[in-house]
């Protein structure tokens, strides 16, 4: 693949200096350098595997972020917006969302969406792995909370999670490596309300260091986590994992957009074809392929990889590639208070969370539940978004000043992450017309909220308003469904023991292609009501640890 060095950018030349002498055939090819791909690359490289990773995006320098500059909010609405259709960068692929209630969000770069995530570092609850047994819906996962727990523990250390152990919403767990971040005035205000009601709350764990940690800086509470951490504090995997992977010889090729996973005569994955940023096509051969493209990018690539042997897309004999998309519909209530709360202050990040209404209670008329979290409300410009389309005198003029004085710095949000259950009608398909900048068909999302989800959101909005009132809110704005909320992309290559009802097994290995693996959120059986990156990485770490421990028995392309 001699062309590889030709596509490397300046930063890649630097990376190449540390690369082991490489053969043409990678032992393991990882597609996607986001959360799960980063974990896999680090672990495999540290254990002597020769790893090549193809990433369609670039490396991002923290100096590119605007959080420490006055123009932060202005730039957040375009260049660093989480919706790729808004950003419209070459390293993004457009997504047809005409038939979706929710817009999928992501970032395509080394570190993937951890570049822009809020770093809420959550574990799923034990019940999340047993929804069929407990609630009679969806399916149980092929492993339990306890099976995953050691990997949650390891990921807490690798990411540098700040938090407080002892949350009664979970079984007893080990201490976090770092003390909790401050919850600020907004967290205290929200907690006071919860205590009045006798409802659960707890300081939210975040993959944001409360003191310097493994080369990253202490969080300065700038509150701009969702648009990239200018202070190099937040745990994005370009910082937590890639330096170690590269030091151990992993080869990272940026600007490499994969259009197809190739298959040999034995039906094994033997590499990938990718396009560099000059539009040239390359082939990377490999013995094993791991796809880490997120819950939309991964099924897109498998559906693109059609062949005579796999006419419906790679690893798709079940017909489930792309199906069961879950994106966590997000609702929120913003409360306004008659006292200053410094509500621009981070982390953002979360301050406190609640699982009071997380577990199923059949009397509510729906199953499963949601996690709530308190987040700051940002700067004065972001608050203006709610005024679009309103009469001039209401949105502007003297009213602008009155509204700013009333709510700015005196507001916070209780957000609701609603568990959406798997539904085959919610899916990723290939669009018939839309393409990315390389002419590769784009994904189309078909996604509708279920009746269960709508009842769940309605119930939680009622309770959150009670929580806000108890905290002393003098006014509230209710957002029943935030359209730009699809951060959590899950379920589209679900795992399971039955090849007819799942795409991969519990180790991420495709039932149809024994040397092809999926490690990202696509493999989730259900979505939980939690931010999933902690679980995505723990599942990936569990899977790659199994791969390493069973190296001699791995099926490989030759």
């Amino acid at each position, binding site marked *: 693949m001699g062309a590889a060095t030709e596509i490397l950018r300046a930063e890649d030349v630097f990376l190449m200096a540390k690369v082991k002498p490489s053969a043409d055939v990678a032992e393991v090819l990882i597609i996607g350098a986001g959360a799960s791909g980063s974990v896999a690359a680090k672990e495999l490289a540290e254990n002597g595997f020769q790893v090549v990773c193809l990433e369609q995006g670039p490396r991002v320098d923290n100096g590119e972020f605007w959080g420490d500059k006055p123009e932060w909010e202005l730039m957040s609405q375009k260049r660093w917006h989480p919706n790729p259709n808004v950003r419209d960068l070459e390293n993004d692929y457009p997504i047809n969302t005409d038939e979706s209630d929710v817009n999928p969000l992501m970032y395509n770069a080394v570190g993937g969406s951890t570049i822009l995530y809020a770093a809420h570092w959550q574990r799923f609850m034990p019940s999340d792995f047993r929804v069929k047994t407990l609630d009679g819906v969806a399916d149980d996962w092929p492993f339990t*909370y306890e099976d995953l727990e050691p990997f949650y523990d390891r990921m807490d250390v690798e990411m540098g999670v700040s938090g407080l152990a002892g949350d009664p919403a979970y079984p007893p767990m080990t201490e976090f490596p770092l003390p909790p971040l401050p*919850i600020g005035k907004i967290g205290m205000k929200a907690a006071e309300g919860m205590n009045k009601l006798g409802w659960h709350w707890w300081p939210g764990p975040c993959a944001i260091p409360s003191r310097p940690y493994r080369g990253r800086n202490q969080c300065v509470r700038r509150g701009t986590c969702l648009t990239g951490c200018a202070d190099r504090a937040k745990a994005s995997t370009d910082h937590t994992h890639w330096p170690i992977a590269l030091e151990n010889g992993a080869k990272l090729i940026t600007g490499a957009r994969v259009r197809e996973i190739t298959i040999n005569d034995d039906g094994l994955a033997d590499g990938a074809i990718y396009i560099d940023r000059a539009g040239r096509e390359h082939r990377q051969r490999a013995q094993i392929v791991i796809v880490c493209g997120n819950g939309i990018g991964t099924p897109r690539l498998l559906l693109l990889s059609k062949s005579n042997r796999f006419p419906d897309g790679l690893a798709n004999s079940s017909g489930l590639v792309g199906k069961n998309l879950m994106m966590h519909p997000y609702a929120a209530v913003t409360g306004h208070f008659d006292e200053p709360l410094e509500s621009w202050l981070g982390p953002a990040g979360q301050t406190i969370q609640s699982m009071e209404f997380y577990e199923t209670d059949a009397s509510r008329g729906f199953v499963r539940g949601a996690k709530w979290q308190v987040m700051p409300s940002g700067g004065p410009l972001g608050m203006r978004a709610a005024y679009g389309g309103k009469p*001039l005198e209401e949105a502007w003029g003297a009213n602008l000043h009155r509204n700013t004085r009333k709510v700015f710095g005196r507001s916070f949000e209780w957000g609701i992450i609603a568990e959406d259950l798997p539904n085959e009608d919610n899916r990723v398909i290939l669009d018939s017309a839309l393409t990315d900048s390389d002419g590769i068909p784009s994904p189309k999302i078909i996604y509708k909220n279920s009746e269960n989800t709508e009842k769940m959101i309605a119930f939680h909005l009622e309770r959150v308003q009670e929580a806000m009132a108890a905290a002393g809110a003098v006014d509230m704005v209710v957002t029943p469904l935030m359209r730009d909320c699809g951060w959590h992309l899950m379920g589209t290559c679900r795992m399971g023991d039955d090849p007819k009802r799942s795409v991969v097994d519990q180790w991420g290995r495709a039932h149809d292609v024994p040397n092809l693996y999926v490690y990202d959120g696509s493999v989730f059986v259900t979505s939980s009501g939690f931010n999933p990156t902690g679980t995505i990485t723990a599942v990936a770490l569990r899977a790659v640890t199994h791969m390493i421990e069973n190296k001699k028995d791995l099926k490989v392309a030759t």
Partner: protein
Amino acid sequence: MSTGVTDEIRGTFAAIADVLIPEAEGMPSATQVGVHEDLLDRILGLRPDLREDFIRGIKSVVGEKPHAAAERLNKEDPAALGTIGLIASAGYYITPQVRELIGYPGQENRPADPDEDPEYVTNGMLQVVIDRGPIYVPTAKR
């Protein structure tokens, strides 16, 4: 930074910006803090994607009375008015004078002491949550 904004465009924007953000409630108007001057060029330079809606909207109301122009845009071309309003308000809230008046220091660098015991621990607020006991549903471990 030259963004090619003519005096006519700039003047029309200034007038509409003052309709949207007038001197009132103890706050200065948009033009009193200079949103139509260098700030306008700075914003269009940083966000060239705003230029098309901005120019279209402003050109369509050149010569009209500012309040009537803003009202018409809000009804007939809300995308343009939204962009004009975004540029005006972005420039406005960037200025140190306005930030001081609304009590906004910007996104601050204000680290906390990680060794300080949280108030919710020392005052017992969290203990009442702990005292209520576990709330999760246990499951079989394997």
